[in-house]
């Protein structure tokens, strides 16, 4: 601790000398910053993926079940702004018709047109949001395949919102903190005004060996989570047994959220 503080002061002093000292700071910083080591219980995958079994959701759950949404939004301190214009959402419901407008047939079995579909960020294999971000505040983690965000780097240009063809991103138009209506979770940072946010596939929970909050919260097993590259994973098993679809596969983004309808 003490030595950390000393080197911190040292770096601070050098910084005060001006930008000319940047290379020195860098050299020192390289020594001073400890390597991040992973928790032994961390869950690992090459590409995390989710299978959303809407059949189970529709058949087994009560009509107004929103367990997954509540769990996610509570865990991540997602504010409830209360307007369509500025709402912030990580996982939410859209109708089958609106979600799959490109593949919905007119006369569907049992008239599922208006049934809800759970939608969230697809953690795309080649994500356009990452491609367009001018600061790498949105980036694809090569180790886990998760599309992550750095809220401290984002400049709020909202290019990623234009780039995402799934409407998965929300922008903090105002200070979100007064609008956090659930109990504050001290383990996850609240965001500031002016940055973009979206589903993180619960990266920080995976690091502690926990499944995503939504997956854990669903009482009907409608959400399956696992490594899509591993043929023996739970997701691959579910996919092998059921016919599934993805949102807008024709765009080449390679979504990693699958739907069983």
């Amino acid at each position, binding site marked *: 601790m003490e030595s950390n503080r000393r080197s911190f002061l040292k770096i601070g002093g050098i910084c005060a000398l001006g930008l000319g000292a940047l290379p020195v700071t860098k050299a020192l910083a390289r020594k001073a910053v400890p390597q991040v080591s992973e928790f032994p219980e961390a869950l690992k995958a090459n590409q995390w993926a989710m299978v959303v079994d809407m059949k189970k959701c529709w058949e087994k759950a009560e009509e107004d079940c929103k367990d997954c949404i509540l769990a996610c939004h509570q865990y991540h301190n997602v504010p409830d702004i209360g307007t369509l214009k500025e709402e912030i959402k990580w996982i939410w419901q859209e109708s089958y018709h609106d979600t799959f407008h490109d593949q919905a047939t007119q006369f569907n079995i049992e008239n599922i047109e208006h049934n809800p579909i759970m939608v969230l960020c697809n953690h795309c294999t080649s994500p356009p949001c990452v491609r367009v971000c001018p600061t790498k505040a949105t980036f694809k983690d090569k180790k886990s395949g998760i599309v992550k965000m750095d809220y401290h*780097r984002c400049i709020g240009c909202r290019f990623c919102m234009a780039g995402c063809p799934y409407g998965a991103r929300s922008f903090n138009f105002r200070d979100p903190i007064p609008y956090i209506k659930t109990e504050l979770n001290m383990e996850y940072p609240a965001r500031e005004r002016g940055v973009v946010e979206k589903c993180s596939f619960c990266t920080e929970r995976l690091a502690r060996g926990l499944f995503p909050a939504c997956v854990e919260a669903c009482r009907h097993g409608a959400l399956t989570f696992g490594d899509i590259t591993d043929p023996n994973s739970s997701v691959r098993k579910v996919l092998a047994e059921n016919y599934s679809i993805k949102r807008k596969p024709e765009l080449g983004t390679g979504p990693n959220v699958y739907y069983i309808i």
Partner: protein
Amino acid sequence: MLERALTGSQQYYRLLMGLLILMGMGFAAYLYQLNTGLTVTGLSRDVSWGFYIAQFTFLVGVAASAVMVVLPYYLHNVKVFGRITILGEFLAVASVTMCLLFIIVDLGKPMRLLNVILYPSPNSILFWDMIVLNGYLFLNIVIGWNVLEAERKGTAAPSWLKPLIYVSIPWAISIHTVTAFLYAGLPGRHLWLHSILAARFLASAFASGPALLILLAFVLKKYTKFDAGKEAIDKLSQVVLYGMLVSIFFLGLEFFTAFYSNIPSHQHGLKYLFVGLDGHGKLVPFMWLFALLALAAVVLLINPNTRKQEKTLKIACLCVFFAMWIEKGLGLVIGGFIPNPFEQVREYLPTVPELIITIGIWATGFFVLTILYKIAVSVKEEVE
């Protein structure tokens, strides 16, 4: 040379004062936005870019159009443009200034702006846009200033300037191409996802920019001793005409592809803009105004009689400018977000603070332009 900006007629001061007041109002509105967040704008989760980015896009075009006087003069030796290249270059400087300001006011975290440089991301078109825009600003300041300086001294422009001038020509094309790429490469935004978008941007720029230049030349003629010359104006008006015709043609191509292929997602954006979608059509009156203005402009410009008459030419240029401003500064950017990725229509209209900030930035641009033109005109008056 800068001192020439400090002395001027009563009218000059009054103009500057007026612009300063507008700038002050814009700045105050911006402070309000900075303190409250972009919630004060009409922007939403679905229409996440609006008026600011649309103005930016339009003004990149105006800036790029300087090439329409520089290129004929330097590459084809069109002598009549000699007197007005400086006007084109200084117009570019003012326009790019506005572009940069519009980007800044659109950011959620403007204080982190430097992150674009600290974490350079060549995969992002915005990164390249930053480079080409700043480069273009730099080129035009250096070129304009040195050419003017040489003119004042009665010498030839320094020889190192020539390569820069030649570079500035493709550079002008690049700024609008790169700006079009901001839009034209996004999957799932069908109104933008056309390879013709960059060409369309350039064509409309070559209509709106020179149209503004003609209007500015008339203003200068009225209030100063500077006369661009009949021939230069006539040549420019031809550029405007062709720019306009090509723009309309390109727009027609988009309509053909969307409606003959009959692919719904390709039609939605255009339908929303011109007839409304699912009962929503806030932009419809504007788009028809665009069509009307464009038609009027073409009629006035195609007929040599009306094109050569100062009065009708002015009207035609105003029509072109506002038509293109609506088409690009309103329709194209906003229309691209409607319908949203769930094919729901969520509309957008700018709010009052948004408009005040926008006016403030336009005033800033005209403030810069007034000062630069004042310097240029004083030098030219002195030489003559």
